[in-house]
């Protein structure tokens, strides 16, 4: 595109390049289905197999899509930093909420099990 001044406007890849990446992603998808479904065969390592094939592979697939399809690998570095900053906010959110959610109670509250219903009965401390 002649009007495109972007850093990677000249970085043309042939269609075959993207199709090859697509087949890699497809292979990883198969792995992410078969891994958790057959994790029981690995006995004590079942949990590890699920973690690796489901979540680990999800990270790899996401990286490939971001780097190769969104062209983050050749995009300006500050775009990557911008996205990483937002991911960092996600971890901060996790760290900030975890103590309240994981603890069964606090100074003035009890953490009732909300699993069985989305509208648990509320209990307020009496003075």
């Amino acid at each position, binding site marked *: 595109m002649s009007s495109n001044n*972007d850093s990677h406007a000249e970085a043309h890849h042939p269609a075959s390049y993207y199709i090859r990446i697509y087949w890699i992603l497809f292979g990883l998808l198969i792995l992410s289905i078969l891994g958790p479904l057959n994790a029981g065969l690995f006995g004590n390592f079942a949990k590890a197999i699920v973690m690796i094939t489901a979540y680990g592979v999800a990270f790899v697939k996401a990286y490939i899509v971001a780097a190769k399809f969104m062209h983050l690998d050749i*995009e300006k570095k500050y*775009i990557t930093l911008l996205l990483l900053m937002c991911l960092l906010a996600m971890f901060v959110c996790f760290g900030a909420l975890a103590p309240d*959610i994981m603890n069964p109670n606090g100074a003035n509250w009890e953490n009732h099990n909300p699993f069985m219903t989305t509208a648990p009965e509320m209990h307020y401390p009496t003075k």
Partner: protein
Amino acid sequence: MSSTTFPRPQATTRSVTGISTGKLAVWWIVASEIVIFGGLLVFYLLMRFRHGDPWAEAATHTNIYIGAFNTFVLLTSSLFAVLAHQAAESDNGKKAARFLMYTIGGALMFLCVKSYEWSIEIEKGYVLTKNVFWGCYYLITGLHGFHVIAGAIIMGFVAKDAAKGKDLQRVECIGIYWHFVDIVWLFLFPLFYTTAAG
């Protein structure tokens, strides 16, 4: 791109930051979406850790094959989106529009399968208010589905212009958004469909 007789919009021509302003805006949207979906995923994970087995048991009622098929559909539509971008880089608007239409086809297929899946689950009594897992499931997949609908509509407008050779830079912008929607699903798939396995 030089064939148009209208002045180019600033979002196309200005690139103070090294990339066009329009594309930078899309990156900002993606960044803000990371925070939105990130917050929901954090909530999901915390609940998962808190409620371990009951949560995993609830997740056994989702259909891994339907989830896997939708992952395949979104990955394929992502391929079409990047091929549309590649065609736009070669100034081939008609080809770019064709690939964008294929991408929209993928979006429609995803939504049809999702609707079918939801109808099965609702029929079985797994409704939004069943418990926190299902509330989480409908909220997050529903929000994701809304993004799919929005992306498909915008892509329709971009494809219409691209077919005339107009504003081909938008093909890359909508592509970036679409790949992000795909990435979100890549994480939703293990969270909702393979959690209980193993």
